[in-house]
């Protein structure tokens, strides 16, 4: 049984079927892509899985547990983390704080411990500080640790968002257009980074991406969406040869 299994997922916005009959499986250590033209419903699929919308139909099962209808925080606790298409960092927190705030256990001590500041408080804040720095070092962001997240260069903001998602120790990582707005050199770095994360943290990665070069190089399987419906599923080579996919992207031959 796969780690994440989505069957027949669907949602309507008014009369618009934004997504219908969507099926998907993902195992840990896999790297799978979701592509499609603009408005195909890719981000909608992510938002359904991450709990921003509640699905009208279908099942989302993560490790035997149903996620459909849970709120985003509960879904994150179940082991699923995501990044956003338009970067959503905590702009006025430092880079380090952005990561520490996501280490779920650090917020666990109660109000009284916080106010009295006993030895336990200091022990825990030292521990989370060390873990945050370690994670930043892994993603080569440690030199920015005390800078405000809003002031980072664009590519580093993307990396920080991934670091923050990883800090929640997820089993599934959803990346929504991680290469958007990056230059070719940054894209190559990102590709290596995604592979590195998959191998180092043993997570299943599901990404939305428009850069076909990147998608074809790193993903093991690709799902293609168009107008809210699944067009094709298969390996990069199969997708590249699929006439329906070519039609969706380039239009029907005259």
């Amino acid at each position, binding site marked *: 049984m796969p780690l994440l299994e989505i069957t027949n997922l669907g949602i309507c916005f008014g009369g618009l079927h934004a997504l219908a009959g969507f099926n998907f499986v993902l195992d840990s250590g896999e790297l799978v892509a979701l592509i499609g033209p603009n408005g195909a419903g890719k981000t909608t699929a992510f938002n359904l899985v*991450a*709990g*921003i919308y509640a699905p009208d139909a279908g099942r989302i099962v993560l490790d035997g547990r149903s996620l459909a209808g849970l*709120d*985003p*925080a509960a879904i*994150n*606790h179940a082991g699923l*983390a*995501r990044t*956003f298409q338009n970067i*959503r*960092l*905590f*702009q*006025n*927190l*430092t880079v*380090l*704080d*952005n990561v*520490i*705030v*996501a280490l*779920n256990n*650090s*917020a*666990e*001590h109660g*109000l009284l411990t*916080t*106010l009295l*500041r006993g030895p336990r*408080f*200091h022990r*825990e*804040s*030292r521990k*989370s*500080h*060390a873990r945050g720095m370690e994670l930043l070092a892994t993603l080569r962001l440690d030199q920015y*640790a*005390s800078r405000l997240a809003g002031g980072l260069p664009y590519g580093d903001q993307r990396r920080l968002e991934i670091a*923050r*998602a990883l*800090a*929640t120790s997820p089993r599934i990582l959803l990346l929504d257009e991680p290469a958007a707005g990056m230059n070719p050199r940054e894209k190559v770095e990102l590709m290596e980074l995604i592979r590195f994360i998959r191998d180092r943290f043993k997570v299943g990665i599901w990404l939305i991406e428009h850069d076909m070069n990147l998608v074809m190089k790193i993903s093991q399987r690709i799902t293609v969406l168009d107008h809210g419906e699944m067009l094709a599923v298969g390996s990069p080579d199969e997708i590249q040869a699929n006439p329906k996919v070519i039609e969706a992207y380039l239009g029907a031959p005259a």
Partner: protein
Amino acid sequence: MELPAPIIACRASAGVWAAVLRSNWLWPLLLLTLLPLGALVENENCVNPYFAHIILLCGINITLAVSLQLINGISGQFSLGHAGFMAIGAYLGGFATLTYSVLPADVSGDPFRSPGGVLWFGLALLVVALLAAGALWLLFILIRSSRRIHPAMPPIFMLLVILWFVIDRAIGYQLEHPAWYLLWTRGWSGLPRLLDFVIHAGMSPAARVSTWLPHSWCKPLCLLTALLIAGTFAGLSGLLVGLPTLRLRGDYLAIATLGFGEIIRVGILNTEPLGAATGLSVSIYPNAADSGAGLSAHYIFPWIFGAAVAATMVIWRLAKSAKGRAIRAVRDDEIAAAAIGIDTTHHKVIAFVIGAFFAGVAGALYAHLDGYLNTNEFAFTRSIELVVIVTIAGLGNIWWTVAVAIGLTWLPEILRDPTLFAIGKNSHKAGLFVQYCKQLGEFRMVIYSVLLIAIMLARANWPPLRAMCQRWLALVRNHPPNGAC
């Protein structure tokens, strides 16, 4: 590994500052620095009562502004209802000591004798308030579940409840003879009567307990209990208001909290036991030594500044902890905060309730300082003044909030009389200049507003000030916690 000397020195000094700010000894030290100020206030030769009053108002404004900073700056919820929480605290605290701190058997009628009575009043109010909340909740659940019968049922039921309330208020008390709906209309007055019953049932045992206490403990214990009651009920009302309204954002939340503040004010204005439009005189103590105007300045000074330091300490520690980090994360991006597993509602409500608690405490202190309460003091403008302090200080910046609260308490007084601090201004040698300065007081509100605009512009655009703030922030921010370096 050898680091260059300047870097080592810089790191060491940053470490010292961060350690001082984080240590457990900073707060007692701060309290010590207040001692000379307290001595000044106590000595009427040094500081006249007018100055002493302003100094005490500074302390109350610090508490209020710092607690609003937690709600508006750190948690990012734009609340305009802080005067409402303050009013709850002021009236409850004032009413408690005024009515229940007098021993029933004491013919002299001296106040501040019966801390047990004050405590019992608080407990009785708590029990009845929880009962009322439970009844309202049940009603709410019933109304909501009627949706299953027909979607139009909940609004119809809501209208019926409002109609019931209106009839009860409008004609219920005009009818003396028993009518079939008398039972019906007595529904609303049941709660006050229950409260009355519970209070009177326990008052004499509570008073007896108080007589066992050493005499010198009674007054501080009375005041402490009153402050805790004020804070608790302000915090509970914060919870009551926060749970539904914190789903709103930005302007909508501001309007909802503004409405709450006005509801509190108008509610008090129509409550006879709280003095209604006449106001509540906390100072009517027939035989008390310090009758006239609340508690004397030198008695209440440590209370007011103790509360200010406690509020600053609690809120500073909360802000610089994992909880505070989560609260600030929710402020910056609620969707992203939820996506990394933070319970956003929980953190917003925590900030709101703690902020309301300290507003209530400040309100109770205000009641005992002035000795007279009028609803006009808790109007919308009061909330605005506090929002101005928080905004000038910078959102989330606690130490600046303290400084600006002090500054903006003095500013109107200085503008009223620009020669406030001038020595010898009353001698007949004082020149024309002093006369002109005094005339300037006529325009004080105009100058006040112009100054506020100028300060805001300078804060945003004056590079040296901004750079200075950022340098200090960078020094303290994110330095490793104790012993981690």
